[in-house]
């Protein structure tokens, strides 16, 4: 090849380059847009459904007949209906992020990735960061649309007033808290994918961690006479931590076991993301690409 006119400067690896490369990889796949689109749409769909139900319920009296004066809807419900599908979206973001990596293992394109950038830690973290960032952006888009939907649906309803600090915290949790949580689940997805490297098993692991395991723990805790301590274990599972984080310490939550404060729940969620990511990155660093 005779012309190398555009390589005068010595090209070098950089972390910003790795991030840009990963962003290109993500946005150049149709599946990325489909996944992000679905999750972004789920927020307003869930918000519309829950807010409509709450508005209807407020018009029904305790005797089951239409109330003469609609009851006030709790202020927290206003914000919670915006993020009602957050738990489902969290799982979807984890799967989306996991698929981004396992697909590269299954179709061997991971070889090209590591040949271009043999620093595997850099590859892992750039992938995790981009997956988390895209999940944040998609969830924020969904939340803003859901906010508009809830504002329209509940406009005629009467809301119970909240204290200023409660209102501020709910706003913070609804937007920043949920977006950061989605990022954490996406990072967990990349970590799990790097640990397992199989698409089917990674998806199973995500479902296991977010649905099956908490359910199993709850069932065990409820049937075993000396197993109530499992309730505390349940509280530190990712989905339970996410729920506790979003309650923002405004609503009490009854449980026989230990229940973390909202900020502790946030830290637990972050710890899951960090632990799975670190474990995944170390496995990715060591594993042979045959």
């Amino acid at each position, binding site marked *: *090849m005779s*012309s*190398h*006119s*555009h*390589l005068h400067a*010595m*090209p*070098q*690896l*950089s972390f910003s*380059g*790795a991030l*840009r*490369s*990963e962003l*290109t*990889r993500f946005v*150049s*796949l*149709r*599946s990325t847009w489909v996944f992000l689109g679905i999750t972004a749409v789920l927020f307003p769909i869930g918000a519309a459904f829950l807010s409509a139900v709450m508005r209807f319920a407020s018009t029904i009296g305790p005797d089951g007949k239409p109330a003469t004066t609609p009851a006030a809807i709790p202020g927290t419900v206003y914000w919670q209906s915006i993020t009602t599908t957050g738990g489902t979206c969290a799982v979807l973001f984890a799967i989306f992020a996991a698929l981004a990596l396992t*697909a*590269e293992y299954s*179709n*061997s*394109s991971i*070889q*090209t990735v*590591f*040949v*271009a*950038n*043999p*620093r595997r830690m850099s590859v892992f973290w750039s992938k995790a960061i981009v997956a988390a960032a895209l999940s944040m952006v998609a969830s924020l888009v969904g939340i803003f649309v859901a906010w508009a939907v809830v504002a329209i649906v509940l406009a005629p309803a009467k809301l119970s007033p909240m204290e200023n600090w409660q209102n501020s915290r709910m706003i913070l949790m609804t937007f920043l808290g949920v977006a950061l949580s989605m990022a954490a689940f996406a990072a967990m997805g990349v970590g799990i994918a790097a640990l397992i490297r199989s698409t089917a098993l990674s998806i199973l692991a995500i479902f296991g961690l977010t649905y099956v395991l908490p359910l199993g723990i709850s069932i065990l805790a409820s049937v075993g006479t000396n197993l109530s301590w499992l309730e505390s274990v349940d509280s530190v599972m990712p989905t339970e931590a996410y729920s506790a984080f979003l309650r923002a310490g405004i609503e009490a939550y009854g449980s026989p076991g230990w229940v973390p404060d909202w900020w502790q729940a946030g830290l637990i969620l972050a710890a899951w993301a960090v632990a799975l990511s670190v474990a995944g990155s170390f496995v990715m660093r*060591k594993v*042979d*690409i*045959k």
Partner: protein
Amino acid sequence: MLSVENLSKKFGEKQALRGISFEAHDGRVTGFLGPNGAGKSTTMRALLGLIRADSGTALVDGHAYATSRSPLTHVGAVLDAKSAHKGRSARSHLLAMAHTHGISRQRVEEVLAYAGLKDVDKRRAGGFSLGMSQRLNIAAAILGDPHNLVLDEPVNGLDPEGVRWVRELCRYYASTGRAVLLSSHLMSEVALTADDLVIIGRGRILAQFTVQEFLERYSSHAVRVITPTPNAFTTAFATLPQAHVEQLNSHGDEASVASGTAEFRITGIPLAQAAELIANQGIVVYQLNEERTSLEDAYLQLTHGATEYASSAAVQPQQPGQSQRPVDTAMEGVRS
């Protein structure tokens, strides 16, 4: 330069590499030959840091590939035919690689054009034929204008024009002082392109030659003669001390015994000299053939016993000179 020193690797129970050592020098194309499962791809992956060796070293320009600050300018690699994500376009695939090193979009355009993929650059790689995928791989390999090329069976799936294109690319890179390591299981293909040969089988280096040495050692030729007058024949050839005459017993069948013919194999003299002597002595011959050992035959002989996967009707390796094949056409194209 690519250098491999005492490299060993075991996958589970299978010893894939057994302390292999060789070098691919700057300015030369090194053919890396071996049957399927011999360890070629494992060696190349070890060079690129994709596989961790159990022992030994695999270095690119004296350094481990993983420590390079600019890997794409050190090595361009073709490993798998379908190494791009099926859902990604050719352009995006190359752009993603280019971004890691801050390589410009213009360079991506250059390599797309060079590989003849400009018209299909927005098509998803999953829809590419094997040949188009190989062209994309080669475009990716030269993206960083690397000092070394590591090509694992790059002509698989390419049409004749594509095969020539890869051959010329290898020669061009070598001519500009760079090292090219080209793997194949086809001796005839490698002999047309390479300067040096490294032959591997069952994880061991079986032989290392320059192509010229290999040709000199294995491209022996002989003259095969069937005559009804064996005594006159041997007497005549006894006058040529440089001629080695061997009587073959393949004509022990009923027909040849009845006809009284014998078959001889003469080495050490050219065909013309043998024919001249036969004519001058008035010896009757029924058949006169020149035979040459093909490079493929010699290669099969070298790798005999080192084949990991063979069909039940395995090819029987032939000793030099036992080939029934006429002059191997691959020989005619071998560069001298």
